């Protein structure tokens, strides 16, 4: 099919249109955004970006967010790998229920759980630290990572494990040298999703931090409340939040696209 590229091309154009609009807004003043329809800023301004780069509350927000998101991604994927392997290869007491229970942790609407979380993390003395947010996000990211990884692991024939044992590989060597490379797509996807969901999560991040570890998401909601709607600033901040995630997906792209080569064991 020579025209295969048409579909992804149209889809990507569809995706890029509102993003272009976002960028468009970020270079305008709020007045212009609300007042006029213009495909290109009539009064091109860097003011929004300058504000972000020079105001500590803004750029610190980015660093704080990146910190806890990275910590969370590493914890989530690392803890999920052995667990997913267990779910995929072994039967044990309560395994099916445990597996489903993990997913149920993504089913609760967060609004009402905010206060109990605040109480919990204050009680253990972790309030207003990146660790607190990183740990709290484990609630929904670990189940996600486990589910995704298990899905990919189950596609690997169990004969691969057995062949390795027959060849005399000790378990850890088998796991990291042979097994993990076969599920790189799953790891890439899981890592990216953990990053993404943690990055955009607003409520818990706001609740568990105040000043020291305040994330960018919280800073952005300020723009909605204080001086009405500072749309230009919001747009600029929003545009900038795309960048770290873009790096992450670029980084894992080879993990995702790499085929599963049924190599010789």
């Amino acid at each position, binding site marked *: 099919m020579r025209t295969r590229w048409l579909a*992804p091309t149209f*889809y*990507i154009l569809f*995706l890029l249109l509102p*993003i272009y*609009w*976002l960028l468009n807004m970020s270079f305008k003043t709020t007045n212009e*955004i609300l007042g006029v*329809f213009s495909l290109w800023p009539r009064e091109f301004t860097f003011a929004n970006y300058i504000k972000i780069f020079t105001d500590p509350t803004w750029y610190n927000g980015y660093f704080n967010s990146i910190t806890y998101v990275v910590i969370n991604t590493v914890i989530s994927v690392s803890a999920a790998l*052995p*667990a997913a*392997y*267990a*779910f995929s290869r*072994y*039967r*044990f007491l309560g395994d099916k229920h*445990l597996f*489903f229970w993990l*997913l*149920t*942790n993504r*089913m*609760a*609407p967060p*609004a*009402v*759980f905010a*206060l109990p979380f605040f109480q*919990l993390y204050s009680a253990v003395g972790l309030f207003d630290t990146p660790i607190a947010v990183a*740990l709290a996000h*484990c*609630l929904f990211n*670990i189940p*996600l990572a*486990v589910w*995704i990884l298990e*899905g*990919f692991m189950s*596609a690997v024939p169990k004969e691969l494990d057995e062949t390795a044992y027959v060849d005399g590989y000790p378990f850890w060597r088998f796991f990291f040298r042979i097994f993990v490379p076969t599920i790189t*797509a*799953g790891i890439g996807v899981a890592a990216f999703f953990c990053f*993404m969901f943690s*990055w*955009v999560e607003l409520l818990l991040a706001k609740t568990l931090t105040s000043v020291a570890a305040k994330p960018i998401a919280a800073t*952005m*909601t300020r723009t909605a409340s204080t001086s009405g709607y500072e749309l230009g600033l919001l*747009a600029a*901040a*929003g545009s900038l*939040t*795309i960048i770290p*995630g*873009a790096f992450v997906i*670029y980084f894992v*792209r080879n993990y995702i*696209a790499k*085929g*599963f080569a*049924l190599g010789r064991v």
Partner: protein
Amino acid sequence: MGGKTINHKAWLFVLPVVLLVAFNAVIPLMTVVNYSVQETFGDNVFFWEGVNWYEQVLHSERFHASLLRQLTFTSIILVIEVPLGVAIALTMPREGPWVSVCLVLMALPLLIPWNVVGAMWNIFALPEIGLLGKTINSLGIDYNFTQQPLAAWFTTILMDVWHWTSLVVLLAYAGLCSIPDAYYQAAKIDGARGWAIFRYIQLPKMKRVLTIAILLRFMDSFMIYTEVFVLTGGGPGNTTTFLSIDLVKIALGQFDLGPAAAMSLIYFLIVLLLSWVFYTLMMRSEGEP
């Protein structure tokens, strides 16, 4: 043998995960359950209310209405996003320089904080100053999502499809890339072509990954809040007031957390039930020995 081995020591593998998740789940959950069966008039004094709040919520017209809206919304977006996502994943290149370009560009909508998503679509869809709004109106269609329920639904759904389809695409794509070459080679030798390859090799091999995608979209769309709230505020009127939005309205409006807590738990149970049903159905047709 293709089956799993019984090994209770596997709990060691699972332990870190259980600890990390339970720490965050159990205690807050207990707190909420606590609230849901009590009444307070302030001053940290609580009165036992039992199941009153639950009854109140379950019988309220308002709850039924928002539940219905929610179910409709979720059904529509699942029907659009899942097939669309799979179709795009099938057409994406598997190797070469375009892979990186595609992956990065497709991931962009997912990375935007949800309040920004709502805000940008808000402006984007406004009839006078937004690209979408202006374009539709210039085609002769009277479109104003702040005043017309249909337009509001259309915009909300479009926004969600724009925002989340890539999630399905990424999962499906990774699943496709994991299919060993030998399957395609065997299919070549067996003389199978396009549709047969999809039906007998690609779709079955993607089943687990698709289950995850569908469940994820189901749950997340069922709990959708920020984007919709910033876009329409639940309106016009309450035509796009889905469950979460309604829940927050109630929670903020009440003096105490009782009804809100009860509602969240009912909400949680609905999602749980529907997910469990769906999960069992998908897993059953797997035919595991």
